[in-house]
């Protein structure tokens, strides 16, 4: 930027250039800074989906909170689901501040969720019928989430990076909570091992889908490319998926579990995992609200939101005191 010139006097083009220079120097953008419209909308899309996925993600695990099979497990899973809600809180606050100039609030986020306009992660549309699923969610779904979140720890958007830093620190506890559950099952009775294997069979496809399609070809949009250009994220979906395989497949095998994909193997030549790709039209169906538990979980959230409307009204009226 020209010395002495006030920022407000710059043309939009100059502001954009200044913005890109800052990003490329590794500077962090803050909520009140000037930003290109598509940077703002990309962030809102990404972070509100991330935030609401944490909130919706509390629901499948919550099913197992009261049923957790010991006092210690009950406490730990309660703390873990609480953290998910807490992560949702942190992320929604980041998204809400980005939306404020557009006149939108948390109320709009909730309404967009209920109307289906705001989507949440594919994994949280799925069933979690046994305690094995609670373990699988905490171990592999959280494991996948850690990989995609930690990639954005150095995101160009400061508030997101700071929220992720806190979230990732708590995820370390989650990962260990998950490992503790699945190791107990893996070392348990044949029935307990079966719980675990069944859960892995149920979750494998969802885990592949978790990182999203390989390229824009499958989805027809290029959000990922734009997010990389703006240094919001640093890796492609496929790079993250490969990282996940490298980290977890050896452990899954070490526990004597079977991955429900006979073709999966590491190719020494390309240094990549070869695997059976999934049906991405099914993925689209699921995230559009047509997964096995999509509507039930949305109904839970909608119902609690409606039932507690009087509480929000009452406290809004209390503001004066």
């Amino acid at each position, binding site marked *: 930027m020209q010395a002495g010139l*006030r*920022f*407000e006097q710059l043309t939009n083009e100059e502001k954009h250039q200044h913005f890109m220079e800052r990003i490329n120097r590794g500077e962090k953008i803050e909520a*009140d*800074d*000037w930003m290109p419209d598509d940077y703002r909308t990309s962030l809102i899309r990404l972070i509100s989906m991330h935030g609401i996925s944490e909130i919706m993600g509390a629901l499948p695990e919550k099913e197992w909170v009261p049923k957790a099979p010991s006092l210690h497990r009950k406490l730990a899973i309660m703390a873990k689901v*609480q953290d998910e809600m*807490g992560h949702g*809180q*942190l992320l929604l*606050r980041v998204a*809400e*501040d980005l939306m404020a100039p557009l006149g939108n*609030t*948390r*109320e*709009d986020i909730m309404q967009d969720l209920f109307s289906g306009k705001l989507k949440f992660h594919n994994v949280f549309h799925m069933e979690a019928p046994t305690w094995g699923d609670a373990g699988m969610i905490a171990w592999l779904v959280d494991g996948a989430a850690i990989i995609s979140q930690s990639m954005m720890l150095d995101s160009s958007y400061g508030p997101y990076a700071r*929220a992720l830093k*806190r979230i990732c620190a*708590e995820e370390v506890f989650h990962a260990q909570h998950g490992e503790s559950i699945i190791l107990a099952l893996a070392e348990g009775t044949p029935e307990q091992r079966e719980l675990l294997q069944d859960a892995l069979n149920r979750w494998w496809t969802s885990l592949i889908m978790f990182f999203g399609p390989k390229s824009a070809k499958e989805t027809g949009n290029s959000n990922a490319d734009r997010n990389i250009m703006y240094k919001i994220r640093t890796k492609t979906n496929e790079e993250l998926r490969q990282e996940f395989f490298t980290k977890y497949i050896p452990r899954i095998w070490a526990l004597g579990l079977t991955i429900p994909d006979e073709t999966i193997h590491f190719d020494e030549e390309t240094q990549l995992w070869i695997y059976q790709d999934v049906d991405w039209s099914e993925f689209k169906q699921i995230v559009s609200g047509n997964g096995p538990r999509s509507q039930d979980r949305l109904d839970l959230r909608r119902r609690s939101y409606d039932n507690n409307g009087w509480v*929000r*009204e009452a*406290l*809004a*009226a*209390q*503001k004066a*005191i």
Partner: protein
Amino acid sequence: MSEQENQFYNVYEVFSKKTDKASFQHQFSLLAPNADMALVMAKENFFRRETVADIWVVKRENIRGLTQGEREMLKRMDKNYRETKGYGYLKKKWRDYNQEQFTEKHIMGGREESR
């Protein structure tokens, strides 16, 4: 969106200090209908693991910050007459008199600046 719903969601910025001796630091923000609720929410939303010695909540609209343009006012030229680095030559001078130059340590009463 109704007027009332809007009032329920006020942004409060949360500050905390880790120990009695520490300074307050900005943490995160939350939505709450009033300051009392904000305080009660803040404790478990942000300090359920780490220790904390005190918490402040401040309604965001009461904070006057700088715009991106106004942040230009933070820039300035080097003013070494205000800082110790402008007086580096004193060390050599005192040496000529066989005296040691007083540093921050002597001036702060022998204490390292407490952090």
